[in-house]
């Protein structure tokens, strides 16, 4: 009784603020629990333990590393990333520049030591390479692996694999037999039928589907008549691809429902964008371009507050309840 009386005295807006603060937005991706549904997308702030740690400390639920391969690679010549201001987007052809798994182990170890929930994105040109990388890292105390079957910026491997249902199935199946750690499969939007590919991944035994990677794109400078990117071709990310990412998550959810957790990526800049992905069917999201361009601390705080406010206004008590809301 005493408590009730005290409560009544607290002002309405103060109550809302408190509720938002206390509101829990932790969520599960399969068996993994993360403190909130926001994760860092692979390739953004993802090549050093210190930037990954910083992004986590800034308030994310987990981080995905830059895609790591069997050997060190310098990636494509510069320019390899630039902004397209008018459509609030980026184009990049970084092309899997990475130190190789043997060297990157140190960075992962640092992350583990600092208790940063880390998903390691890995890639290879074929099953053997994927296995090598996985074998070289699977003893670490990480959340799981994200298989990058979808990078458009390399000559071999990458998105070629991601458009081939059989390759997807057999790689996922082979890797799954090697580890108990969750395996997420990241899909490319540059396919005729994403459901088919996702189906192969699910049949192979993957633990979550991540969509989407960047869209095949290019920019030419008309003054010098040169493609601007050093690699000429690149991948589009940012606001321009949000309606496309939403569509793919919606289609995937329509097909799989609760059968497999979906992780939405592409063009998230605001809390509203996250909610849109959740309603479309995502269980969690990854944010790339937006976090890179801004101060991670600021943008993550703003996004998180907005999500909580939305949940309050719409009477949601958990993230999971929002998932798939647009299908009802």
């Amino acid at each position, binding site marked *: 009784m005493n408590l009730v009386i005290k409560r009544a005295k607290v002002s309405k807006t103060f109550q809302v603020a408190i509720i938002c603060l206390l509101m829990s937005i932790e969520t599960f991706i399969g068996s993994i629990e993360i403190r909130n549904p926001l994760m860092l997308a692979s390739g953004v*702030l993802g*090549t050093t333990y210190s930037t990954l740690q910083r992004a986590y400390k800034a308030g994310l639920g987990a981080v995905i590393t830059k895609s790591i391969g069997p050997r*060190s*690679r310098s990636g494509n010549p510069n320019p390899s990333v630039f902004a397209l201001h008018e459509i609030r987007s980026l184009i990049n052809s970084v092309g899997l*520049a990475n130190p190789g798994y043997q060297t990157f182990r140190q960075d992962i170890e640092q992350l583990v030591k600092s208790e940063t929930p880390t998903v390691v994105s890995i890639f290879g040109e074929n099953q053997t390479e994927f296995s090598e990388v996985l074998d070289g890292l699977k003893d670490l105390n990480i959340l799981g692996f994200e298989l990058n079957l979808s990078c458009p910026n390399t000559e071999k491997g990458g998105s070629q694999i991601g458009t081939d249902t059989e390759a997807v199935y057999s790689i996922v199946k082979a890797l799954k037999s090697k580890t108990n750690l969750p395996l997420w499969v990241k899909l490319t939007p540059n396919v005729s039928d994403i459901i088919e590919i996702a189906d192969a991944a699910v049949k192979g035994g993957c633990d979550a589907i991540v969509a989407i990677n960047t869209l095949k794109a290019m920019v030419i400078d008309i003054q*010098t008549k040169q493609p601007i990117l*050093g690699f000429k071709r690149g991948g589009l990310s940012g606001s321009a691809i949000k309606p496309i990412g939403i569509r793919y998550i919606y289609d995937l959810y329509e097909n799989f429902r609760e059968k497999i957790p979906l992780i939405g990526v592409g063009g998230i800049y605001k809390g509203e964008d996250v909610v849109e992905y959740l309603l479309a069917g995502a269980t969690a999201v990854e944010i790339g*371009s937006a976090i890179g361009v801004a101060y991670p601390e600021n943008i993550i705080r703003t996004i998180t507050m907005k999500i909580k406010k939305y949940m309050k206004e719409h009477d949601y008590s958990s993230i999971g309840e929002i998932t798939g809301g647009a299908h009802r």
Partner: protein
Amino acid sequence: MIKQTLPNTKPIMCKIVDKEEECEDTYTFLLEVPVEVKSAKPGQFIMLWVPGVDEFPIGIAGFENNILEIGIAKMGEGTEALLKKEIGDYLGIRGFYGKPFKTPKKVKVNHLLIGGGFGMTPLKLLTTNLIHQEEKQEIHVFEGARNKSRLMYLKWFQHLHDEGKLIFHACTDDGSYGYKGFPTVDLEKFLQEVEGPSIFYVAGPERMMKAIFDIGKKYDKVIDMQMSLADRYMRCGFGVCSYCAVDPTGWRICVDGPIFNTKQLEQITDFGVYKRLETGEKERI
């Protein structure tokens, strides 16, 4: 509409309107920026695209009437191709990126600008700004090079020195101009004698900066040291890729720097120790 800075977008193509040899293997280029921009701050940089060849970070040496001045030192393929560009050719720029040097307003201090090589480019713009500041303050410029023919902006600084606008301390390894020896030695001598608080503004090879940092730490009268960590690999220039980041803070040199102050430098454990390559691998400095 005059913009505060350029939008962060694809390279904006600028015509080369002037090109002059500055010193050995080093040229000054003047670029006409087709978008009206308000100003550039010393320490900021651009990503410079040499079409069809490469893109890399370059400091801003001057910016007036929408003409951008840069100074390019020959390093490898990219800068070599750039040095072959002539008046009328086009180069792409992105930026202006990064946090600038910060000069205290109202406090009377000695401004010690210390650098070498292409590190002199941001120090040139800083000098220009300092000598235009209302209150006259003492400005000392320490420049080091192998020999006289490699002292960047030698004539420019010497002229300002002669006019009493600043005191120019040139140092060469071979004594062909100014003090014979490293600028670190010259600087330390100077510090022992100088009175009142001093601030360092440093841009040059990271090893040299680390040595200067260790010297500065010994003197209480050095109230701040600002250093340009511009000796690192950059890809995007605006914070997305993380290839330029330092440990363990995760600061991106391109966004959170390139200028860091004493407090920040103390937290950067890899300062002067190692840097990341374009693969993300570490390399000892």
